[in-house]
């Protein structure tokens, strides 16, 4: 508390002077000493951290959707459609909002060689986008794919 008051006083007296380097260093932690949540986020290009994150979430969720917005508030008609289909099949699914992170938005496109969002993963494998989901719904493949997952989720 005392230190904060002192720092405040110091800041006031230094208003016109740029902050010294040691003060800036205290504000921005580097990667080595930082918790995962606070590490600097990479923008542009598929940094290893984005790829690792994608691998992690598609392995953790039986069904995972990379979408624009959230299942509660989709920001794009195609993403909305993907959510509606998955919800209609009654399978629980995780979702990543790519609009929240530009690095993720580019990273997922590189990861799958797929230029558009949404993108659906089932059992850790890339299934496709909205059109493929609809085609699989039409030809019955989606039921075959999701039925065991729905049963497993219901049994829990």
């Amino acid at each position, binding site marked *: 508390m005392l230190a904060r008051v002192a720092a405040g006083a110091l800041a006031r007296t230094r208003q016109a002077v740029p902050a010294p380097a040691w003060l800036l260093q205290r504000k921005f932690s580097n990667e080595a000493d930082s918790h995962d949540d606070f590490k600097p986020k990479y923008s542009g290009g598929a940094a290893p951290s984005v790829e690792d994150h994608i691998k992690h979430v598609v392995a953790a969720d039986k069904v995972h959707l990379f979408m624009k917005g959230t299942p509660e508030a989709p*920001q*794009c*008609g*195609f993403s909305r459609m993907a959510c509606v289909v998955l919800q209609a099949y009654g399978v629980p699914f995780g979702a990543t909002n790519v609009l929240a992170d530009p690095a993720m938005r580019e990273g997922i496109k590189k990861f799958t*060689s*797929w*230029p*558009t969002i949404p993108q659906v993963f089932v059992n850790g494998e*890339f*299934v*496709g*986008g*909205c*059109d*493929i989901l609809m*085609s*699989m719904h039409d030809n019955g493949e989606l039921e075959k794919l999701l039925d065991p997952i729905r049963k497993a989720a219901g049994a829990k």
Partner: protein
Amino acid sequence: MADGPIAGAIRSKLEAALKPAHLRLINDSHKHAGHYARDGSAACEAGETHFRLEVVSDAFTGVPLVKRHQMVYGFLDDEFKAGLHALAITTKTPAEAERK
């Protein structure tokens, strides 16, 4: 409506690569004009951001759906870089097209 530069490129590239028995390209960009932020790209300025595509080609025979779409996306890398934003794709082999 005459094709713009993006539609023209999509058509000619897919015709050359897939020799489709049927190819239909519909520009849906006007339907998305409200929600899609103007990004200043060539495709955006020309109103060529969202398309629907139907292709029937022998090249899809024995190829799973994901791979078919990845084939199509692969040919259109330049167009996506130029600002093409969404492409709703239906891919069929001639045999599949006949069944419907």
